[in-house]
């Protein structure tokens, strides 16, 4: 930055011609904020150039100073955009500016909106750069909601779908419990113009997901993803043997949480799966002297025990089971 931050604006000759505009809090302000002097003065000068609509290089520098004091001020971001346009300022430099502000705090709606505005103006050529930027943010916080939102926007508006599934895999290798990465995976297989859509991708994705489930059966995300792969296709969901097999596999293990395997089996049974003896034996092996009623009811009883904090939910599920849905 080429200004001396330590000198108050009122003492800088560059600003001598500007009359700062104080904030009008009204005659009886309720809980007036105790602004620091530097903040108050900077905002007073910003108000002056904002109301005089001065779109100059010094105005641009002032918006930067103001944003460093409060990067959430959307009026300042808006005015900065007007100034950038008026000056036909280098937008690649602007991307770097945004990255510098993001270093302090990237959980800021206004910053991401500004980033989108700049990227949209620069067009598809910056798709790679936007994916790289969000990748850096996600490397610090892999569930950063703004970064994921910007990444989805980038893919939709600018492109870059080619490596996205691999990127999701990379994140899931690092943390298979990352629900954002599973969500992004679903986003890619359902919306990428380069892939064939959900049905075309189903077989490979089921295989991928089952591997993930077997490595960590207590993972809510992977089980939900598996079910989502059969969106609107109940027939395939109950007839695909790999789905009920993974449930059986997990239920036969003694070293892990059985809750998601049981709830998935419950869903299958309620959707019409005809249980085999293997299913029945598997479930009965987990029963604690519970009465041997219909299989789905027994699964609910066991769930009430293994997932006790949701006992009311499992009791409700039990109450919905009709004899026909055995």
């Amino acid at each position, binding site marked *: 930055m080429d200004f001396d931050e330590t000198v108050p604006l009122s003492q800088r000759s560059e600003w001598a011609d500007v009359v700062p505009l104080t904030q009008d809090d009204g005659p009886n302000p309720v809980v007036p904020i105790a602004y620091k002097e530097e903040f108050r003065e900077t905002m007073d000068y910003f108000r002056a150039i904002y109301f005089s609509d001065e779109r100059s290089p010094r105005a641009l520098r002032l918006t930067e100073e103001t944003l460093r004091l409060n990067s959430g001020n*959307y009026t300042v971001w*808006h005015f900065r*955009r007007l100034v950038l346009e008026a000056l036909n300022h280098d937008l690649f430099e602007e991307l770097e500016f945004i990255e510098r502000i993001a270093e302090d705090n990237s959980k800021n*709606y206004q910053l991401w*909106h500004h980033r*989108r*505005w700049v990227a949209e103006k620069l067009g598809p050529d910056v798709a790679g750069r936007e994916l790289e930027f969000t990748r850096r943010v996600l490397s610090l916080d892999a*569930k950063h*909601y703004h970064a*994921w*939102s910007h990444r*989805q*926007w980038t893919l939709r508006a600018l492109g870059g779908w080619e490596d996205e599934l691999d990127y999701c895999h990379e994140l899931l290798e690092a943390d298979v*419990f*990352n*629900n*954002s990465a599973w*969500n*992004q995976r*679903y*986003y890619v297989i*359902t*919306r990428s113009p380069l892939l064939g859509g959900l049905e075309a991708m189903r077989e490979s994705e089921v295989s991928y997901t089952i591997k993930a489930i077997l490595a960590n059966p207590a*993972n*809510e*995300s992977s089980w*939900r993803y598996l*079910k*989502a792969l059969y*969106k609107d296709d109940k027939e395939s969901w109950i007839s695909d043997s790999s789905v009920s097999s993974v449930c059986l596999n997990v239920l036969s293990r003694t070293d892990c949480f059985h809750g998601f395997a049981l709830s998935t089996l419950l869903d299958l049974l309620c959707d019409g799966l005809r249980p085999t003896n293997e299913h029945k034996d598997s479930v009965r092996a987990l029963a604690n002297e519970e009465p041997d009623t219909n299989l789905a009811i027994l699964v609910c009883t066991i769930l009430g025990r293994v*997932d*006790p*904090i*949701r*006992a*009311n*939910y499992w009791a*409700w599920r039990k109450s919905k089971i009709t004899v026909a849905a055995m």
Partner: protein
Amino acid sequence: MFFYMQILDIAGLQNEDGSFSGDIWGKVDTRFSYIVICCLSILKCLDKINVKKAVDYIVSCKNMDGGFGCTPGAESHAGQIFCCVGALAITGNLHHVDKDLLGWWLCERQDYESGGLNGRSEKLPDVCYSLWVLSSLIMIDRVHWIEKAKLVKFILDCQDMDNGGISDRPNYAVDIFHTYFGVAGLSLLEYPGVKTIDPAYALPVHVTNQILFTK
């Protein structure tokens, strides 16, 4: 204030697809759908927007897990779910919600160990989700699916017993935001001595009654 609000061209902020931008500069997010619908319903001028299109947009943000995100395809998040379910509740469109599926997703937010609620799968419990998750569960009539006593204990454990206030999780620094959400959560859990709040408006019921049922 009502006079000035009515001059504000909120209808102008609605986009072709029914979504709302937060301001004239364009960011779209289901949070804004909720804010617009909530404000206009309090001002009794919901007719200023195309409610059907607004609802259609919210429904387009529904995910396979029954939850909602900020835009179509975005990850289900309890805060966004509150906004979408709240907007659908206020406009009389809760039939678009798969209440059983969403109810299960919401009650899965409760952590067995602490009794607290998180906002997304595998994230840490945070007191603010006591409002977002609980309100949503109440609006879809599934609040009995969480373990209330354990959640009450979690919120109370987040208090600073020396200086007052409530933090996001036990032994962290308190702030006004989490104090509000903790108290609101206790209200929704019918904690004795706390006034009832309306889950869709997050306002005390005596206030919403006054606004909505008087001319």
